[in-house]
């Protein structure tokens, strides 16, 4: 057929050359893509390969990626409103998590992580016989080991033991069945990868900000080992895991290339202005910012923000007075004048009634005499004349991470910090408590207390544990810790089963304020032990042919 047609074609073609000019040719169908590179080019060219490695950094997930991605909203620290909060976050905190909706709160972590893990696996397969110089390859290898470890750690945190896959799959394989590795196996793989990265990566002092460094790999390893030693991941209570955690965290604590910031710069760190303490971060620019931006989500209504996530009264109550006592323990604390003499971090983290913000004052109050008069109510109140649905439902907003000098819609131009040095003092302190060295623990803890200007901790025993946990809570608000900490300590039933509450503020004619602590933002929070880990997505269990074992309770 083809042959015959070709002949015919030639005949017709000859007769119509005038029209056809020179454009008719046999290879008209040979075209190539003009919008991308083929894989052959990418893995043979050091510059393109570096671009591919750069791309893999996009696997780093920050709470800045979208509205409602701060995990604090799933804990006693905060309450989320708007958009997916109504559906996904609330469904989760009500305990309505099931095998087919678990991914809603992680925004498809399972599929995404393995997508990026495949990129790292592809990298290692493709460079095996690469013509690229080893000197050029070595750093890229270090970066990819780091990123592979990072992604497995994300999976470990949310799901527990997951399949450790280091080779790429092909299309059309007979079977794709895999089994889950144990938590121990995943941990040791992450540690191995981190060790390779530590070997192959230079110090952060010689790298631009945002690049994986030796220090970043050390930090990743240290956090991983802390998690691995914690009750949720260390069911047997193996003390040697605490020793490993202690050693790894001490190594980061002792790093000479990063140093704790002075407290006066503590808030600047979250705006990206001071980075001496920062070990690893993700940076943003105007062109490369994600979503609408953290200012829009955090800013109060009076400044055009959405108050997407707001602090709970429980978090506010966890800030000690400058005396070192919690409000509930202190005789000095006056619930009708609650925001005086508090831990300095309180003022940098939380917007409370009367807090100065930008050119004005945070004002969530209602008029005492006429609480429904929006003329007399504050601009941040729930009947604000501005956009009442963007008012905080708890009477507080977050200040931390906001870039006050920028507008509400300027994208997220500050960095998100994954690891900063403070964490490793606290991690070390935790390991030392568990190893029974309370003195050593208090020393590490008090370095941070002292920096903050808070009195040193002298407690011991369970009281020390509580003090430590509270210290960690107030230091790391909105830094993706609380959600995982309450799980790995297995204290979720004590802290995540209560309603999310806030404060209702009234202002009298004389300008005095009255605080009512009975305001509930979310009544229906429930804890169920299955929530220690997320379910493996239902579809994945099905697709594995049943070899993937589901987490308990789903």
């Amino acid at each position, binding site marked *: *057929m083809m042959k015959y047609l070709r002949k*015919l074609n030639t005949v017709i073609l000859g*007769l*119509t050359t005038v029209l*056809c000019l020179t454009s*008719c040719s046999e290879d*008209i*169908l040979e*075209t190539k*893509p*003009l*919008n991308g*590179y*083929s894989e052959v080019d990418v893995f043979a060219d050091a510059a393109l390969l570096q*671009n591919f490695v*750069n*791309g893999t950094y*996009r696997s780093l997930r920050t709470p800045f990626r979208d509205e409602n991605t701060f995990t604090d909203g799933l804990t006693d620290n905060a309450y989320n409103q708007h958009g997916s909060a109504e559906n996904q976050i609330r*469904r989760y905190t*009500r305990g309505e*998590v*099931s095998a*087919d909706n678990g991914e809603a709160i992680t925004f498809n972590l399972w599929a995404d992580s*393995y*997508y*990026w*893990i*495949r*990129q790292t696996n592809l990298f290692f397969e493709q460079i095996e016989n690469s013509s690229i110089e080893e000197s050029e390859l070595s750093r890229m290898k270090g970066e990819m080991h780091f990123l592979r470890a990072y992604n497995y750690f994300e999976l470990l945190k949310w799901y527990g033991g997951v*399949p450790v896959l280091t080779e*790429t*799959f092909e299309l059309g394989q007979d079977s*794709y069945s*895999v089994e889950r590795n144990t938590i121990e196996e995943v941990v040791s793989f992450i540690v191995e990868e981190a060790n390779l990265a530590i070997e192959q990566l230079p110090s952060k002092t010689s790298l*631009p*900000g945002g690049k994986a460094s030796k220090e970043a790999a050390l930090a990743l390893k240290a956090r991983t080992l802390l998690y691995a030693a914690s009750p949720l991941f260390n069911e047997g209570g193996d003390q040697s895991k605490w020793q490993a955690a202690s050693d790894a965290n001490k190594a980061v604590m002792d790093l000479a290339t990063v140093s704790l910031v002075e407290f006066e710069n503590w808030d600047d760190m979250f705006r990206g202005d001071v980075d001496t303490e920062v070990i690893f971060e*993700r*940076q943003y*620019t*105007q062109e*490369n910012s994600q979503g609408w931006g953290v200012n829009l989500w955090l800013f109060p209504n009076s400044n055009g923000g959405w108050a997407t996530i707001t602090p709970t009264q429980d978090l506010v109550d966890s800030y000690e007075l400058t005396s070192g006592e919690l409000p509930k323990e202190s005789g000095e604390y006056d619930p009708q004048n609650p925001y005086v003499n508090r831990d300095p971090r309180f003022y940098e983290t939380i917007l409370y009634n009367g807090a100065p913000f930008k050119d004005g004052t945070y004002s969530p109050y209602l008029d005492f005499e006429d*609480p*429904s008069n929006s003329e007399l109510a504050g601009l941040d109140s729930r*009947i604000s004349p501005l*956009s*009442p649905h*963007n008012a905080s439902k708890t009477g507080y907003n977050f200040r931390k991470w906001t870039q006050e000098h920028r*507008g509400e819609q*300027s*994208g997220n131009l500050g960095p998100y910090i994954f690891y900063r040095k403070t964490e490793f003092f606290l991690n070390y302190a935790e390991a030392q408590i568990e190893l029974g060295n309370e003195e050593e623990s208090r020393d590490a803890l008090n370095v941070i207390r002292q920096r903050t200007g808070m009195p040193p901790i002298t407690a011991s025993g369970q009281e020390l544990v509580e003090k430590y946990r509270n210290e960690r809570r107030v230091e790391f608000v909105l830094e993706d810790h609380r959600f995982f900490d309450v799980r790995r300590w297995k204290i979720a039933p004590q802290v995540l089963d209560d309603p999310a509450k806030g404060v209702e503020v009234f202002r009298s004619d004389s300008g005095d304020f009255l605080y009512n602590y009975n*305001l*509930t933002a*979310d*009544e229906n929070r429930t804890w169920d032990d299955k929530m220690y880990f997320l379910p493996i997505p*239902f*579809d*994945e269990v099905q*697709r*594995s042919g049943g070899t*993937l074992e589901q987490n308990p309770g789903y």
Partner: protein
Amino acid sequence: MAQDGQVTVTGTVVEAETGMPIPGVNVIQKNTSNGVVTDFDGNFSIEVPPNTVLVISYIGYATREIDVDGSTELEISLELSTDALDEVVVVGYGTQQRRKVTGAIEQVDGEKLNETAVLSIDIALAGRVPGLTVNQTNAEPGRDEARIFIRGIGTTGDNSPLIVIDGVANRGGFSRLDPNDIESVTVLKDASAAIYGAQAANGVILVTTKRGKEGKPVINYSYNRAFVSPTREVELADAALYAQSVNTLASQQGQPDIYTQDQITAFENGTAPSTNWFNAVYKPNSSQERQNLSLRGGGEAVKYFVSMGTSFQDGLIRGDETSGYKQYNVRANLDAQVTDNLTFRLDLAGRKEDRKFLQFENATIYSSTMRAAPDILATIDGLPARGRERQNPLAIAQGPGYLGLESNIFNGLIDLNYDFPFMEGLSIGGWMAVDVNDDFRKHFYQPFTFYEDTDGDGELDPVKAGPDFNNTFLRQDNINRQSVTYNANLNYIKSFGSHNLKGFLAYEQNRIESNDFFAQRNGYQSTQIDQLFAGSANSDFQSNSGSATVLTRQNYFGRVSYDYDSKYLAQFIFRYDGSSIFPEGNRFGFFPGIEAAWRISEESFLKNNRIISELKLRGSYGELGNDRVDAFQYLNLFTLGGGYVFGGSNVNVLTPGVAANPYITWETVRTYNFGVDAGFLRDKLTFSGNVFKQIRDDILGPRNVTVPNYTGLQLPDENIQKVENKGIELESLFRNNVGDLNYYIGGNYSYIKSEAVFLDEGDVYPEDYQRAEGHPVGSTLAYDYLGVYRSEQDLETYPGLNGNARIGDPYYRDVNGDGDINNADRIRIDLNNVPQIQYGFQLGGDYKGLELNANFAGQARANQYLRYSFSNGNNAIAYFLENAFDPEANPTGTLPAFNRGNNVLSTLWLRDVSFLRLKSIELAYNLPDKWNSRIGLANSRISVSGFNLITWDNLKEDGLTDPESVNIEGWQYPHTKNISIGFKATF
């Protein structure tokens, strides 16, 4: 008995060709209403003055005037009118006489498109062609194209039909053609589409523009002005209902009241203002206009049709002088008989389309209207107020920002045809078409101003809203697309006695190249000048990029038609298509079509039957392809993009795309069609019907079920899916005349249902009834809503979704009966917003210069998800708030408590969007000749017409959106109707 001076004239009317008597013929005394109709034997008897003139007329025959001239007995013979029999149907690379058509082909006269005064003319096809789904899903000026499917949904991939304009495929812009330029629109539904091979699987629409006619030059001018208004007002909650609902919602969340009873009372009795945002934002009407001037004529050597038109439409938002649509179009279609054997054709057409929109996404603008709280003002002292989230559409509309889309389109074609003198019937031809689209997009994104008293001094102050300085920008995009097509063809037509043969062979190649680039600057200090230079000088605030694509096709094809005495007809079509979309070795495909028909009415036993004038059985089989898929899927590609930041600077980033699929090929559909065409009483009544079945294989889809996500593979689509599509189409038309009254009534109906046969679903669903396989394409899973938990007893009786339930929640059917409601209890919902049934009927007529045409279009078996979200600060449609259950505030509410269950798909939110719509109606008056000659015109016509004037549907009673809307919350530009006046003159 004759009256005074009257005589009785009797006679018989027979067919000239056969001498057979014709029943039902009108016999009328000229210029009177005195008339009779012939009986079954063709006989009539009429009383008339002795020297009068009788007008003898009958559909399908040439009208005759007979001077009675004193006779009392007449024998009148009527000639068959040639129009009906010689009606020509465009079939793709040629034409056929209607009676010789063997496929399922429908043709709409271009004049019909002019009955509907819309600027997107594809909308005018709604209701006119059985099997053609025409839905206008958006009515925004410039974005109001119809969504068109031929024979419904046949694939999970791209279902859009191939559109061919004047023989050239993929020219685009059908909806923007000037209806005054269109001769006909033809739809190829079955194997007849095989002549377009790998692009024909979704059917083909052939648009033919007018050409020159032999005769003296005729100038036509037409003008039409329409007043466009929303088809309906969405009934949003007023302030009282809103405030009450906000309180109820707060109490459900354990929070105190937001509004006091006093405030609510004030809203109720009107002492406090309540804003109807729909009315505050949308004008009752906007305007639309179309003008056209054409010249048509020609001699033996040259024939010409030249035309020029303009049209415009503005937007519906009050005070919006930005948005709108403007079009200018010119066309020159020339035919020349160069020598006895050589013809030459040149078509040149140009069009300029200017679209302007407001600077924000539609969702922002329209949802800001629908969701704005009714207790806030839309305007203060006539100036736009803050609005919802500082996004009052009235303020946005008055701002300096805009999105402009300008398209300049050129279509050119040159065609030569040579008849070989030495062999009769053999000819050779070739043509070249050049189509250029230049798109220029300009998006100026700037702050806008609303007014409020910010400092409390009682005076309004302007407040800037929208992007801050860094986020202001101007982005300009240029997209240049050019398509060049060459065609060479060899044709043969010959009759050997009763054997008629017609055929051609052709070669065609096409290259479509597209280049685009853009530049952008942010940081505009002033909105005075909307040019790039005026943006920030800082290079961090400047960006640009560009890319290109090339697509080529190479095709060999032909058709042979044979008939014996117009009685037995057969046709063979083939196309051998190659495309650069697919990898080498996999590029070419063979697409045959075969058709046969038997005209029973030509058999001796039916020939000249008085009742049955036409009876034809048709059958066809064809294999067609659908190559509308992304190119280069056979390669592993890495693209730059996404970006990342190191050390404060952006770096290049390469991201892999989906894995390569080296085996990729096109979808293939096997299409079977069986049809009947019948005509009765000399085609006074016609009927046509089709039943068809399409089996489509090799549909591209992912192996989503068999390959887990942990492989990290971004799965390519593979040719694995299979869909079947079946349906029935019926249509009928009755035309008649009674004296000077000519009238017609016609209708059509189609029922089309697809079935996904294979989608690689594996075991992914917990229950078998959840599989999409076995259901129509586009089916969804939804919980089966039963009711609302109203009492503790209900909570005990009905299991809650995932084990949780509160009073006010919806409860669902426990489909698998396991005592739990979870994802396994979702059921398949077959219907979606592409209707399975559609129908239309047309009626009209003319009487002494007066003309009426009406077209009704309807659909059934269609669903749309319609739901709401409501909170303090976000209003909703009143229906949802009025009916939301609350144990105290509204114990009889039929819907769940506010927002409950609106995050899961359930039958609760599914609405039947069946409708019947008076799609168009036109009343026209052709001025009498004596008046015309007085004002120097040959003909003139004035008309009044309406579009979408009446709709019968199930949404209206609940104050919901238009049934053609596909937005689940109604956050969309309102659907529109219009009333127009028109004038046409011929010089």
